[in-house]
């Protein structure tokens, strides 16, 4: 059975969706959770579902001062789940420099800087596990997803380097790459397209769309000692989407 007893886990982007589900599950499995995000009210909603001792740190990770404060204020970690990020579809011909900066600052730079500062401040305990949330779109593109997919591909490459640099302390780093999961982002996509279009899309998923808890379950395994021999890898979670020949 997976247990996270006596582990301290930092979850970024814990104010909603996958981040919130990860925080709640880690708490249920015995971890002490530190939740961070930009929206204090939403973080408090997440915190209301936590039973163990926990810490709430409101921070915008794209702000370097706030990121440094977060690192300073958090205890030593046995786990880090990097869920913070944004999705903003933009067809290639509309891309301007500001869009690249916005996407990479939120999805790549802030995560890289957080890992770097935590590492430099020796906040990772030996045997810690670090998880990066990517997307199957890093390899399997969708229309309008050029910048998002590129930022996630960059994160995956970063994870592999992080993994080899920290292996001597048995610190592990892995990526979870889901396809479409039902979160607020999903609802937003449905509004921008149509319910019908989303239903047609779901028909391509042999197991249907994912739920935040599906990702949290995988994250819990990667945080636990049950995965102590797994590092530098990407776990694809797609409900069978990429197996399917149905179009």
């Amino acid at each position, binding site marked *: 059975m997976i247990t996270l007893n006596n582990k301290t886990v930092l979850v970024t982007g814990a104010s909603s969706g996958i981040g919130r589900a990860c925080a709640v599950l880690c708490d249920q499995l015995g971890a002490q959770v530190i939740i961070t995000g930009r929206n204090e009210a939403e973080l408090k909603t997440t915190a209301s579902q936590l039973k163990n001792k926990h810490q709430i740190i409101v921070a915008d990770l794209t702000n370097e001062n706030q990121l440094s404060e977060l690192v300073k204020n958090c205890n030593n970690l046995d786990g880090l789940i990097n869920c913070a990020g944004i999705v903003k*579809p*933009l*067809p290639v011909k509309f891309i301007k420099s500001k869009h690249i900066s916005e996407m990479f600052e939120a999805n790549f730079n802030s995560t890289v800087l957080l890992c770097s500062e935590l590492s430099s401040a020796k906040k990772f305990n030996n045997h810690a596990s670090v998880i990066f949330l990517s997307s199957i779109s890093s390899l399997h593109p969708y*229309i*309008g997803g050029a910048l998002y997919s590129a930022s996630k591909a960059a994160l995956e490459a970063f994870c592999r380097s992080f993994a080899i640099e920290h292996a001597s302390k048995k610190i592990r780093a892995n990526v979870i790459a889901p396809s479409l999961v039902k979160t607020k982002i999903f609802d*937003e996509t449905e*509004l*921008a397209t149509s319910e019908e*279009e989303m239903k047609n899309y779901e028909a391509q998923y042999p197991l249907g769309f994912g739920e935040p808890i599906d990702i949290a379950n995988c994250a819990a395994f990667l945080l636990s000692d049950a995965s102590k021999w797994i590092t530098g890898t990407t776990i694809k979670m797609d409900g069978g989407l990429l197996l399917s020949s149905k179009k």
Partner: protein
Amino acid sequence: MSINEFIQKLEAEFEDMPQGTLKAETDYRSIKGWSSMHALIIIAFIDINFNITLSGADLKSTQTVQDLYNLVQQKKSA
């Protein structure tokens, strides 16, 4: 930007669209071959030209090209 200019510029972004297809009263979702790519183009077009970020809900509240134009004007003055 006038409504006519808005229509002309938006139409130019839909590369596969014959000139004159879009009119103020056009229900844009009923255009032949309409797809989510068109929705993305509308959102991006308004972002680039007016520095306004439309949400999915914003887009859903509109039906015609005139509605889109009105929404932009409304957001600009907000």
